[in-house]
């Protein structure tokens, strides 16, 4: 029961790098204009909201992969 743990660690590592890429691709170019003095606050709030949603999605996917890899052991 060691190989699946190494597989899971490797998948999590790839997911961290891929998640970072997704965050970079979506958030980095994002700029909000047209709200005067509120531009910066809105920009930060929207970026924070997107980042939190992406993290929730990341945890959900990682959790599904965990159930799939450790299915037998968790059932037992």
């Amino acid at each position, binding site marked *: 029961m060691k190989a699946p*743990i190494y597989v899971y*660690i490797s998948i999590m590592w790839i997911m961290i790098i891929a998640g970072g*890429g997704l965050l*970079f691709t979506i958030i980095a170019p994002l700029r909000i204009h047209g709200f005067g003095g509120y531009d910066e606050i809105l920009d930060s709030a929207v970026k924070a909201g997107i980042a*939190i949603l992406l993290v929730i999605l990341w945890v959900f996917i990682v*959790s599904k992969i965990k159930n799939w890899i450790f299915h037998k052991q968790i059932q037992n």
Partner: protein
Amino acid sequence: MLDKTIAAVVISAIAFVTVYLLTPILIKTLEKRKLVVKDYNRVGGAVVPRPGGPSILAGIMASEIVLYALYSSAAILAIIITTFLAFLVGLADDRKVLGGWFKPLALAGSAIPIILLGIYAPGVYESHLAFPLFGHVRIPELYIALIIFMIPITGNTINSIDVLNGVASGFMTIASFALTISLFIVHNYDIAIASLPLGFVSLAFYKYHKFPSRIFPGDSGALTLGAMYGAIAIVGHVEIIAAVALLPAVINSFLFLSSVKRIIEHRQLKSNPVEHTEDSKLKATTHKDAPVTLVRLIVANRPMTEKEVGFTIFKLALFSAALAIITAFMMDVHI
């Protein structure tokens, strides 16, 4: 560069020697005061002194204060204060059993000095996350939230893996040296030097904590190590690398939380994730309501001795350490 090399050698020696010499004295003091706990995995149920946090803290403080005296860096001060506050949180939990939510909230408070020092001394932390292959993402407001979350996460993650003789200190030795190497790879030499005491303190403590343990770190020891690791990750701008090096412990916490579905202490569990065979080996429990943990998965196929399980966790830590170092090399590569 030569003076930095000398400083690195001196503080590493101070960290190692302080813990190496102080821990036996602490063991005797704790035994005299009857501050001992039962080692449930040991044949015959031996009692072991706890907590070893004071000697761990002494090693960290002695070495980091010398480093601060040499370089007067606000980042080193942030590491010192956060680590000390996390130690106090752990000590409070060692002395009195506190609720499951106390530690995360109190550890979040321990992170505040990093934010405050960042206001008065810009550069203590950067308001961006560095990702391998892609680059930096600037998230000023979200980064403050990340600092507040990071210390409770690293602190509790190390605390949650402190379930077998030598595992927390051995795991921390591997993860922190991987972090130090990574900091050198990303050319953050000052914080790389500041991170050296964490590895040497963990290594010196491992001598007494390894199977059969002569002392347990307790919450004060585990939270001190975990919080210092988190503080280094923040001031060293290597949050992602730090998370990768900690993956086996992160998986342990993730498995535990997703099976119990709330934040609780191990002592509040109705049934343990592992049981003992007649020859005192560890085997996976068959209880439906027992949490899923890393140790339970390791012994799922066959019962193993405590020492074997510990070495399996160290192999997983070495694998994650290698991934963390690869990640550090990938920081300079952009696609």
